[in-house]
């Protein structure tokens, strides 16, 4: 039985806490109870912060009672991927290598979330150091999908997606190098947003591949995503890729009027997409057209090379990052991750530079495309979440599958640093959620959020509940 208020979005929950109809302590207690009751089914968490969370919730209640409310996240339970350093709390990256590592500093987003008064109730499970797309490559075992616990949650931020889908918390923070926010969001039937590269500082999070790593956000509504983005976006000199930007105000600028937005679809890359996914996507595109978007077919042939370019970049950079541990402790990595690092170790400098030339050519092609369109929309994934029994190959994520047609659509936004949002757009005949991703030009984050918000206002797919909530 779920406490009704755990069904609430961040916006509603925040209002209830701010008006003191609910106390943060009660909400956090309920979130922790729900987490504990579902954890045997989901395995979504690595570390649970019962006592610190309850102490922070009581402090939040005191501040709010004294008129010192800090903002929409104050007193609200949230979760973060165990990729982010937390001072005094172990931070593992889902790896045996850091099983007992307790940092003495906070990651940027943790600092910002503490400042906003958010209550971190747990650190979520993932593929080891973000190297995977299934959340089965964890030292702590696989994450299970709340819609069907025999299926994967997607990765690498699978624990975060599962926690939000299962109504443990309204918002969670993850990271994305290839598709690690949008894919699990799609598989778990929630919203997942990855901003433009540099909008949220990555200081204090483990690197997957430095030129592709992003911090991303999970929620059940786009407005909650916007609020979660506002709390964490902003310049940070500790991340060399951080972008100078105005004080972020995404939520107050949400605009559901999407008339005349030019929205492109890429038919060339839809071949091979599962029929149920394709059908749901076509209905979603029609909804955008009915809302006034101008839909057009577009061909960007260079995207055929996107998945292989992204995967080669990831392989080389992750091998560089993990070089020391690979040589000294390779047996402590999850075996599949160790093999992937080995392949990356064999890439030479000149080959890496060749890959970056290819990446530049694809970037130029997208730059030209966005001169004439506002958004690209595609199915987020080619099929719904596969069974856990299919293992890591269930996602077509091995290098040998790099030329798999739809993977190009999933991988190009992170490789190029474009803002992207996956929104639920259907349910398959076997009861699994389907997602549509909306991709904007560089720094068109607000346009992406507006389109996602407008789409959500026309549909109720984001209100469907997974099996564990029935």
């Amino acid at each position, binding site marked *: 039985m779920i406490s009704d208020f755990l069904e609430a979005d961040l916006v509603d929950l925040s209002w209830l806490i701010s008006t003191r109809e609910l106390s943060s302590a009660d909400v956090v207690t309920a979130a922790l109870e729900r987490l504990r009751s579902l954890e045997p089914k989901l395995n979504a968490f690595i570390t649970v912060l019962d006592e610190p969370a309850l102490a922070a919730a009581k402090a939040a209640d005191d501040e709010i009672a004294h008129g010192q409310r800090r903002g929409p996240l104050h007193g609200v339970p949230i979760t973060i991927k165990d990729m982010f350093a937390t001072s005094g709390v172990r931070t593992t990256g889902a790896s045996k290598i850091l099983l007992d590592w307790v940092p003495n500093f906070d990651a940027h987003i943790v600092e910002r979330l503490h400042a906003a008064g958010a209550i971190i109730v747990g650190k979520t499970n993932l593929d080891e150091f973000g190297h995977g797309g299934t959340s089965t490559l964890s030292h702590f075992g696989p994450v299970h999908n709340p819609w069907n616990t025999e299926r994967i949650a997607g990765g690498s931020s699978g624990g975060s997606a599962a926690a939000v889908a299962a109504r443990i918390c309204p918002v969670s923070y993850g990271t994305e190098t290839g598709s690690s926010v949008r894919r699990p969001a799609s598989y778990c039937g929630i919203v997942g947003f990855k901003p433009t590269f540099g909008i949220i500082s990555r200081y204090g999070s483990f690197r997957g591949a430095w030129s592709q790593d992003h911090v991303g956000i999970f929620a059940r509504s786009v407005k909650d995503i916007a609020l979660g983005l506002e709390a964490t976006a902003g310049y940070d000199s500790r991340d060399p890729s951080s972008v100078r930007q105005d004080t972020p105000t995404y939520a107050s600028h949400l605009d559901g009027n999407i008339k005349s937005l030019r929205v492109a679809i890429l038919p060339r890359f839809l071949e091979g997409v599962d029929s149920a996914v394709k059908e749901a996507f076509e209905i979603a595109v029609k909804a955008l057209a009915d809302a006034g978007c101008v839909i057009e077919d577009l061909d960007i042939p260079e995207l055929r090379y996107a998945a292989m370019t992204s995967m080669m970049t990831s392989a080389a950079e992750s091998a560089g990052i993990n070089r020391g541990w690979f040589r000294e402790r390779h047996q402590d990595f999850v075996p599949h991750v160790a093999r992937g690092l*080995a392949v990356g170790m*064999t890439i030479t400098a000149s080959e890496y530079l060749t*890959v970056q030339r*290819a990446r*530049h*050519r694809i970037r130029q092609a997208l730059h030209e495309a966005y001169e004439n369109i506002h958004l690209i929309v595609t199915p987020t994934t080619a099929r719904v979440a596969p069974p856990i029994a299919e293992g890591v190959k269930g996602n077509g994520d091995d290098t040998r599958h790099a030329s798999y047609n739809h993977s190009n659509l999933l991988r190009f936004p992170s490789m190029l640093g474009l803002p992207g949002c996956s929104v639920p757009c259907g349910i398959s005949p076997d009861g699994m959620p389907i997602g549509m991703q909306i991709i904007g030009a560089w720094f068109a984050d607000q346009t992406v959020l507006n389109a996602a918000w407008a789409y959500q206002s026309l549909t109720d797919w984001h209100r469907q509940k997974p099996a564990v909530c029935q």
Partner: protein
Amino acid sequence: MSENDRFAHRLALLGGVEFSPTDLETITSEIVDMDRILTELEQFAHDTPWVSLQAQPNEKKPHHD
């Protein structure tokens, strides 16, 4: 360079880290695939400019309003 030499050259980059025969078979098949991909990417990118990856301090960049 023969295929065997090419594999030997690549595996030498592992820096002495040893894998089981089964793991090595997987790694080798991935390397075969990677070689194919690199050939494709080289052809695709051959007339593309080399990319500068230099980062400049933000505070030194001119402002464009």
